[in-house]
């Protein structure tokens, strides 16, 4: 079993905060397939489309038949740990801060041998399950874990280094008024978050979620993502205590361009959904990036909750979804900007939710509890892209298959 994670002691104010470092980031284009799968928590390897041979390391031609058709497929992650070592010397600053580092060779049941990280509970010679996780450089890496869950398994320092686990971390939920705020707060506390802050704007205006939040051990902080001074003030006071930021602020009204007839709500949507994200990132991003090496409660993840329709738009929520697409595009820039610090941007794409604005839509809809569950699991698994609910999963799969086909499906006109 892994030693249970201990709460960090108060920092010695005379000690410099550990600088952000990251493991080697360089990868070939082919190897980024592993990263793409890890971003969604899948274990995938290249499989030759012609002869079926499973390949590792990633490459450009099949080492059995020289075919260049090597699609990534989800495959069995099982294997045997046939050798291991504890690295005790390295020229990498990232690993130097974390020595000794356990590394091993796993022979996959599918054939290839892989060099991988090794969870502390794996025994040499034993059966293991490989996980494909994003490391702090944001690249897909393999880590061998015990075949059966072990106590405190998630607390293994190496596995934790590849996760955004909220356990013992301090989390800011940016909008207490969102219908998902109580569920998120509750799930985070249940997952062992040390502290949950909820941002509260327009305190002169009551809202039903307040009562639910008041029953939880959360701390309310004044924060309005449309108000730059409010965001900057909060970041100045609390930025150094935020390890995970969950941006659930959202302004939503139905309607496409013609149905709306004006830009009024669109401005609100851009103010909250796009500029709000930008304000938060400009205020909280730098201080979080400076704290990614800060021990047990290092800054680790930035979570955006986005509509699945940010992938491909349709008129029902056309103007709103455009603001979501803008936020999604901004999140990609943020990924690049946060990358050198190792701060992860996790986008949670959610289908229609159980709320006021999706009343006219038929099920399935995502409940706040289901969304919260998916967010927590995504954090624990260190994902970059989470699709919450059947509609979002469906949309993601269609988007992967062919974005143009999806677009046409979503933008069919009415029968004449």
């Amino acid at each position, binding site marked *: 079993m892994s030693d249970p994670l201990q709460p960090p002691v108060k920092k010695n104010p005379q000690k410099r905060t550990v600088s952000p470092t990251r*493991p*080697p980031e*360089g*990868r*070939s284009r*082919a*190897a980024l397939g592993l990263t793409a799968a890890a971003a969604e928590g899948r274990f995938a390897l290249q499989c030759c489309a012609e002869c079926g041979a499973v390949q*590792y*390391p*990633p490459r450009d031609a099949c*080492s059995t038949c020289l075919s260049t058709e090597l699609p990534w497929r989800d495959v069995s992650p099982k294997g045997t740990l*046939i*050798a*291991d*070592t*504890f*690295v*005790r*010397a*390295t*020229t*990498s600053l*990232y*690993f130097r801060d974390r020595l000794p*580092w356990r*590394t*091993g*060779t796993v*022979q996959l049941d599918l*054939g290839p*041998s*892989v*060099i*991988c*990280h090794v969870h502390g509970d794996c025994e*040499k*010679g034993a059966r293991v399950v490989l996980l494909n996780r994003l*490391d702090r*450089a944001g*690249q897909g*890496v393999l880590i061998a874990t015990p075949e059966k869950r072990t106590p405190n398994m998630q607390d293994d320092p190496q596995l934790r280094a590849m996760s955004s686990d909220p356990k013992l971390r301090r989390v800011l939920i940016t909008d207490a008024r969102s219908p998902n705020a109580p569920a998120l707060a509750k799930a985070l506390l249940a997952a062992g978050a040390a502290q949950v802050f909820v941002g509260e704007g327009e305190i002169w205006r009551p809202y039903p979620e307040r009562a639910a939040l008041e029953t939880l051990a959360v701390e309310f902080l004044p924060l309005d993502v449309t108000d730059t001074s409010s965001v900057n003030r909060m970041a100045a006071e609390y930025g150094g205590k935020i390890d995970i930021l969950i941006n659930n602020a959202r302004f939503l009204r139905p309607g496409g361009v013609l149905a709306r007839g004006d830009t009024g709500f669109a401005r609100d949507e851009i103010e909250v959904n796009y500029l709000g994200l930008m304000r938060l990132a400009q205020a909280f991003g730098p201080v979080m990036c400076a704290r990614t090496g800060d021990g047990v409660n290092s800054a680790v993840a930035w979570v955006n909750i986005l509509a699945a329709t940010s992938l491909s738009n349709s008129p029902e929520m056309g103007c709103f979804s455009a603001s979501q697409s803008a936020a999604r595009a901004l999140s990609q820039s943020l990924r690049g900007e946060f990358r050198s610090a190792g701060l992860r941007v996790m986008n949670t794409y959610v289908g229609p939710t159980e709320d006021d604005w999706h009343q006219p839509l038929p099920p399935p809809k995502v409940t706040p509890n289901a969304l919260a569950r998916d967010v927590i699991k995504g954090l624990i698994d260190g994902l970059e892209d989470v699709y919450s609910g059947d509609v979002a999963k469906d949309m993601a799969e269609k988007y992967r298959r062919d974005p143009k086909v999806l677009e046409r499906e979503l933008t069919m006109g009415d029968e004449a």
Partner: protein
Amino acid sequence: MARRQGYDGVVVTAPVSVPYERYSIETAHWWISRALRASLQAAGLKPLEIDGFTVSSFTLSPDTAVGLTQHLGLCPRWLDHIPMGGASGVVALRRAARAVQAGDADIVACVAGDTNHIDSFRTLLSGFSRFASDASYPYGFGGPNVNFALLTDRYMQEFNATREDFGRICVAQRDNALRYPNAMMKKPLTLEDYLNARAIADPIALFDCVMPCAGAEAFLVMREDEAIKRNLPFARINGTIERHNAHASDPVQLRGGWTLDVEDLYEMAGCAPSDMDLVQTYDDYPVISMMQIEDLGFCEKGGAPDFLRNRDMTVTGDFPHNTNGGQLSAGQAGAAGGFIGLVEAIRQVTGTAAGTQVKDARRALVSGFGMINYDRGVCSSAAILEGAA
């Protein structure tokens, strides 16, 4: 008739080792030119008098052998660049020998050299190979130490080898190095020192690892009559082999490409392992020396620990091995590490090894191994040299 043509009439001569330095502010070009110059001087040659040239180096970038011709004022009609690390010495030898034999060149200078700046090693690792960047270095960034730790771990599990077994190789080589003035390591090493050393990547500890340094090695390949004309001590090439990416489906490397070609080697050379007066293995980690001793037929697979327990690997012993201390004690000067055993073997069989000279050494086996492209060494090579009687 033998399956392969011999190297009749071709010899190797003018071995040169430029004394190594731990760190150097000079470039690979500088180190290579010093080795080339010394080798040419030994043979009484001017740069324009050689017409073949081959280079091995990791730190020459952005130049290759091509850039060096202009840089060093050479005008060869045969040119090669051999990026095979620890296998490059033997590979350079066998290519040069065929060129000379075929008349494509008359005198080929084979040189390897690298510099070692502060931080060179980390930089070299970072850009070593695509598979390493993609699938090896992200896992602890321990460089080859990690690969060999895993391999050694597996070898120990499989063949009941102990750390003492590996230690004996290192201790014997240190004894040999004390006789070799160019060795970086000048302090005696005991088995106790070895066992108590700082762990690097279990079960690899400090004295299992080579010390990266700057240095260069060189030799010349020419026709026998040319060597005789210049009054040079020379060695004949009895046989060579080379193999890449052998046994690709072995889950961990416990054998190298030698196993595919070892019969060929001895058949070509017309001799057997027991005929060797000394053996120079590629020794960036002792487990690799064991693997070569097995794969080149001195004992069966997995038998090296036992085989070596009963032998003395020092210069004066019954199984002289890595007689100048090898890379473990003389230092690893980048690609020159693929030449050090070969250059020492030329000195040994030509009776010019001075302090490390094995008595009556006539025949030497030299083995090369190189390029941890991902999880194992991809290149293997071996040659048998015989001093001119």
